[in-house]
C-alpha cells in the first residue's frame, strides 16, 4: 500500500478502514464471481487474488501502531493526499493482480523483468522512505526493549541509499504521484509491501557476508501478514542463524516458532524469528530431503529451539545434528514412525 | 503481620456471607437457552442429506437411509441414526449444518452410565429425548 495510508489521524484512520472494508467487499464479490467461473484455475491466479484482497485488508492493521505517534508526526503530511492515495492504491492493486498472474513466481528473488524493474525500484524507494519514517515513529512511540538508536539510523541510511540508486525511476514515480491520476497510477504495477525494504536489507546483509548462493529464495509472504521470508541453504544455515542473531543490524534475538512441514517431495523447516530491537519479523525456511532429512540445530543460537526441534524430530523425523538431547518429546520413546509424515501408517489401527 | 491480619479479616467476613453452593442433584440445574446438551433427533424431518455425519469432527454419527415407502415420492427417509456419545464432543456443528433442524440440541446433559455400551444412542432414544429442546439452532 502507499505510505500515505500508514500514518493517518484517528479520524482518517476510521475513514480509511471503512473505505477499505467497502473495497474488500467489492473485491470479494469480484473474486467470488471469478471463483465460480474458474474453480480449476491454476493456483497462482487464486493466490494472486487472495493476496490482493489480503493486502488490502491489511490497511487497517498496518495503520495501527502509528496511532501511538506524537501529533507532530502524524503531521500535515498526507491528509490532503488521502483521497488520491486511495484511488491509486486501488489501481495499484489491480495492476498487481495482473502482474502476479503474469509471473506466478514474481515473488522469487531476481525474477523481475526489465520493464517491471523500474517500477519496482520506484516503489521500493517510496516504501523505503516510508519505512524509515515509520521506524522512527515507532522508535519514538517507545517500548523498545533494546536501544536501537544508531541501528535505526543505519537502517534509514540504507533506505536512503536504495532510494538514490533508484533515482530515475523514483523521479518518474513521483511525477505519477504528483498528477495523482488513477489512470496514470495504473502504470505503477504492484504496490510493494511495506516490508520490502526490510527484506532487501536482510538479503543484502546475508549475501554480503555469505555470498549469493546461500539464499535459495527470498520473498514477501503476502499470506502471512507480509512477513519477509528467506529460504536458506541447508548446509550454511547454522552460521547464518548465528549471524541473524548476532548481527547488530538484524538482531533476531527471538525465535517465535520452529516446526517442520512434509511436502511429500521435500521437508521444510519453518522458523519464525523476531527482532525486539527492530520490531521486525522474519520467516526462514530450510529445505531438506525426505529420506535423509537433517537440518543443522540452532539450539545453541536460540535456546528456545530446543524443544521445538525435539518436537519436529518426534513428529516428522527430521534430524537436527548439533542438538544436545535429541529424543522424542511428545510420543513414547518406543514409538514407531513419525506421525506427521504424509506416508505414516498407524501400526495400531484400532485406535 | 498486617497482611496476615487483613487476610484473616477477609476470610472471617466471608464466614457469614451467602453461600454459592448449588443443590444440584436435588434441584435441577437450569441451563441457558443456548446450552448444548444431548441431541434430539426427529426422523420425520430428516432428509438423509448426510451433512451432519460429514461435518462431525469426531465421526461419531452413523446414519443410513432407505427409499421412501411411498413410491411416488422422491428422496429417502432415515433408517438408522446412531450417535456414539463416547466420541461426541457436543460441538454443535451437526445442528448447525442440518438444513431441516432434524437434529437439534437439548438442555439435557446427564449422560453418565455404568456401561460404555449405553453410550451408543440410537434413533429411538434420540427421538425420545425430546424434553428441553433448544429453540434456536
Amino acid at each position, binding site marked *: 500500500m502507499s505510505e500515505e495510508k500508514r500514518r493517518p489521524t484517528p479520524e482518517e484512520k476510521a475513514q480509511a478502514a471503512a473505505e477499505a472494508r467497502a473495497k474488500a467487499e467489492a473485491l*470479494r464479490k469480484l473474486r467470488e464471481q471469478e471463483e465460480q467461473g474458474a474453480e480449476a484455475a491454476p493456483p497462482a491466479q487464486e493466490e494472486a487474488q487472495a493476496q490482493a484482497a489480503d493486502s488490502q485488508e491489511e490497511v487497517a492493521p498496518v495503520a495501527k501502531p502509528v496511532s501511538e505517534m506524537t501529533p507532530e508526526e502524524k503531521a500535515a503530511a498526507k491528509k490532503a493526499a488521502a483521497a488520491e492515495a486511495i484511488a491509486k492504491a486501488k489501481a495499484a492493486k489491480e495492476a498487481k493482480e495482473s502482474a502476479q498472474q503474469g509471473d506466478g513466481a514474481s515473488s522469487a528473488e531476481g525474477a523481475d523483468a526489465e520493464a517491471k524493474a523500474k517500477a519496482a525500484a520506484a516503489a521500493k524507494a517510496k516504501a523505503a522512505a516510508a519505512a524509515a519514517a515509520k521506524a522512527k515513529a515507532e522508535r519514538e512511540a517507545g517500548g523498545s526493549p533494546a536501544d536501537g538508536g544508531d541501528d535505526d539510523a543505519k537502517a534509514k541510511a540504507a533506505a536512503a541509499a536504495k532510494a538514490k540508486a533508484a533515482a530515475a525511476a523514483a523521479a518518474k514515480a513521483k511525477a505519477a504521484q504528483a498528477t495523482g491520476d488513477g489512470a496514470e497510477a495504473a502504470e505503477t504495477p504492484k504496490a510493494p509491501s511495506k516490508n520490502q525494504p526490510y527484506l532487501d536489507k536482510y538479503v543484502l546483509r546475508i549475501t554480503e557476508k555469505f555470498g549469493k548462493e546461500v539464499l535459495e529464495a527470498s520473498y514477501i509472504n503476502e499470506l*502471512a501478514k507480509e512477513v519477509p521470508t528467506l529460504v536458506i541453504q541447508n548446509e550454511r544455515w547454522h552460521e547464518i542463524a548465528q549471524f541473524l542473531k548476532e548481527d547488530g543490524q538484524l538482531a533476531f534475538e527471538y525465535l*517465535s516458532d520452529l516446526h517442520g512441514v512434509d511436502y511429500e517431495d521435500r521437508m521444510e523447516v519453518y522458523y519464525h524469528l523476531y527482532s525486539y530491537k527492530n520490531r521486525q519479523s522474519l520467516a526462514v525456511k530450510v529445505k531438506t530431503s525426505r529420506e535423509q532429512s537433517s537440518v543443522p540445530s540452532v539450539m545453541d543460537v536460540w535456546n528456545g529451539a530446543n*524443544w521445538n526441534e525435539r518436537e519436529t524430530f518426534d513428529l516428522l523425523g527430521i534430524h537436527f545434528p548439533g542438538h544436545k*538431547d535429541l529424543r522424542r518429546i511428545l510420543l513414547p520413546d518406543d514409538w514407531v514412525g513419525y506421525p506427521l509424515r504424509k506416508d505414516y501408517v498407524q501400526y495400531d489401527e484400532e485406535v | 503481620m498486617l497482611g496476615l491480619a487483613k487476610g484473616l479479616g477477609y476470610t472471617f467476613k466471608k464466614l457469614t456471607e451467602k453461600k454459592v453452593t448449588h443443590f444440584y442433584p436435588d434441584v435441577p440445574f437450569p441451563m441457558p437457552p443456548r446450552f*448444548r446438551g444431548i441431541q434430539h433427533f426427529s426422523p420425520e424431518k430428516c432428509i438423509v442429506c448426510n451433512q451432519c455425519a460429514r461435518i462431525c469432527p469426531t465421526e461419531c454419527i452413523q446414519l443410513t437411509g432407505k427409499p421412501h415407502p411411498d413410491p411416488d415420492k422422491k428422496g429417502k427417509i432415515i433408517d438408522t441414526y446412531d450417535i456414539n456419545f463416547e466420541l461426541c464432543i*457436543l460441538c454443535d456443528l451437526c445442528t448447525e449444518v442440518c438444513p431441516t433442524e432434524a437434529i437439534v*440440541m437439548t438442555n439435557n446433559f446427564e449422560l453418565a452410565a455404568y456401561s460404555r455400551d449405553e453410550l451408543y444412542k440410537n434413533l429411538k432414544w434420540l427421538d425420545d429425548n425430546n424434553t428441553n429442546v433448544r429453540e434456536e439452532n
Partner: protein
Amino acid sequence: MNQNILTTSVDTSSENGIRTEEMLLNVGPQHPSTHGVFRLVVKIDGETIKEAIPVMGYLHRGTEKLAENLNYTQIIPYTDRMDYVSAMTNNYVLCHAVETMMGLEIPERAQFLRLIAMELNRVASHLVWWGTYLLDIGAMGPFLYAFRDREMILDLFNELCGARMTFNYMRIGGVKWDAPPGWVDKAKEFVQYMKKELNNYHQLVSGNEIFISRIKGIGKFDTSTALDYSLSGVMLRATGVKWDLRKDEPYCIYDRFDFDVPTATEGDCMARYQVRMAEIEQSLRILEQALEQFPSEGEVIGKVPRVIRPPAGETYVRIESPRGEIGCYIASQGKDKPWRLKFRRPSFTNLQILPTLLQGESLANMIVILGSIDIVLGEVDC
C-alpha cells in the same frame, strides 16, 4: 528417558564420614501440583534439586495430525481442547490465520464479540491461575474465591455460546452466536463486580507476608535469558519487556481501546504474580470500553464462501493468549483441509526454561516456579 539422570552419585567423601546419596524423585504424572499429567524427574540431594527433566506427552492427542484430515470449521472444536482454560484465544488464532490467508473482512459486531469473549476468557484464565497458584503454595481459600468469580464468566459464556469451557464459538469470518438479549448488561455488571473483587484479592493475598516470602526472588531470570528461551507473555513482561501483541501487532480491534501493558523488572515469581494481577485489571479496562462501545446491531458473520479454501501458500499469525504468544501456522494447498497445521503453544515454549530455573532450587520452590509459568497441559501436549 535420559540416561544420565538415572545415575545418582553416592558421596562418601564428606568430612564427617556420613554417606550421602542422591535420590531420583518422580514428580507426576499424577501429582497435585503439576496441573495435569506432567511429569518431572528430579535428581535431589536432600531437598535441593540437582537436575530436573520434564517428561510430557501424556495428553498428546495429535491435534495437528487430526487437523490434516479435517476441514477448517471442524478444527475449531479441537482448538478448544488445547488450552482449555482459555479456549477463546485458541478459537481466535485459528480463525485469524484462515482469515488472514483469505483476506476476509470481519463484521464490526463480530469483532466486538470476539474481543469481549477473549478478554473475558483472559480474566477467567488468570483467575484460574491465581487460585491454583495459591493452592500450590498451600492456601486453599483463594482457589475457591477465584473459581466462584470465574464461574460467573463461565455462566456468561454458557449463555453466549452454550458451553462453559469448550466454546466452539468463533467461526471463520465471524462468530456463531450474537449476544443474547441482556447479555451485554450482565457482562458490564460482572466487570464492575470483578473490579471490586480484585481489590479483595489483593487484600486477601497480595500483602500476605508468608506469600511474599515464598515468591519473592524465586525463579529469577533476566530479559536476555527470556528471549533466548523464546519466552512470551507474562514470562517475558515480568523481565521488563513491554511487549504485548495486542498493543504491538494489533489484531482484532484492540487498537481501538485504551489499555496499558503491565510490566515488572525483577523477573521473579513475584513479578509474574504482579503482572498477571495487573493484567486482569487491564482486561477489565478493555472490557469496560468494549462493552460501552458495543454496536447496537450488525451482522455477526461476514460473507464467507460456503467451502473454506484458503489460497495455496502458508501463513503464520500470532496473538496474545493469557499464557503468552499463541501462533498458528497453516500450510495450505488450496484445499478445504490444511496441508499442515501447527500451533505455537505458549505453555510448551515457556516450559522450556523450567529445567534451568529448577537447578539448585529446593523442592518447595519447584512447585512455586512451575506454578508461576502457568502451563496448561492440554496445550503443552497438544
